């Protein structure tokens, strides 16, 4: 069964420093991979996706993610964190040609300190 894992419950980083939020996936075929962000009492906002092609994907708000097939990872990155980036981040996977289900990781809370 397809799944994603986010090994860190929380990531703390100082404003202006680079940030990384980790995600690994497990699927039988080639995956569609996503990152979503959630602010308190809000729905999920789409940040970026990997479908195929270039392994470095750029998304909203200066975020990017690197797809690594050999390590089955799709880590979210940003060169310089902002306090306003503090939120809950979810990695998700959809199986290509599958049932259209979107399966989420357990989430990582990002805390950016001034």
């Amino acid at each position: 069964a397809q799944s994603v894992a986010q090994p860190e419950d929380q990531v703390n980083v100082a404003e202006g420093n680079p940030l990384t939020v980790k995600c690994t996936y497990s699927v039988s075929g080639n995956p569609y991979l996503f990152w979503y962000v959630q602010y308190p009492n809000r729905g999920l906002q789409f940040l970026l996706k990997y479908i195929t092609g270039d392994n470095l994907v750029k998304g909203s708000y200066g975020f990017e993610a690197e797809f690594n097939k050999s390590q089955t990872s799709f880590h979210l990155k940003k060169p310089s964190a902002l306090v306003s980036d503090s939120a809950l981040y979810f990695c998700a996977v959809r199986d290509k040609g599958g049932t259209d289900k979107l399966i989420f990781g357990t989430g990582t809370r990002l805390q950016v300190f001034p």
Partner: protein
Amino acid sequence: DAMVIQNPRYQVTQFGKPVTLSCSQTLNHNVMYWYQQKSSQAPKLLFHYYDKDFNNEADTPDNFQSRRPNTSFCFLDIRSPGLGDAAMYLCATSSQGGIEAFFGQGTRLTVV
């Protein structure tokens, strides 16, 4: 703007009293999803519609039902809410063969 709209944003219901949450979309997407999310956990898929075809997850309790009268609207009915059903309920849409899903703002359900 095209979007996914959930009403209400906050819903309080009594233990055992049926409650309905609604979702509408202007994206004309044929796939609609309902997720349950408890206290900052991962959203858990309850069911989804592929057009009018209903797909229930195996572990979704019978207490949860859904209706989709047309492309634009989808409803989540909780027949007899228990305290454990208090959660954020998220509606999402995607196009057939589409890539990302688009989420509404969610409805936070409180059971008293």
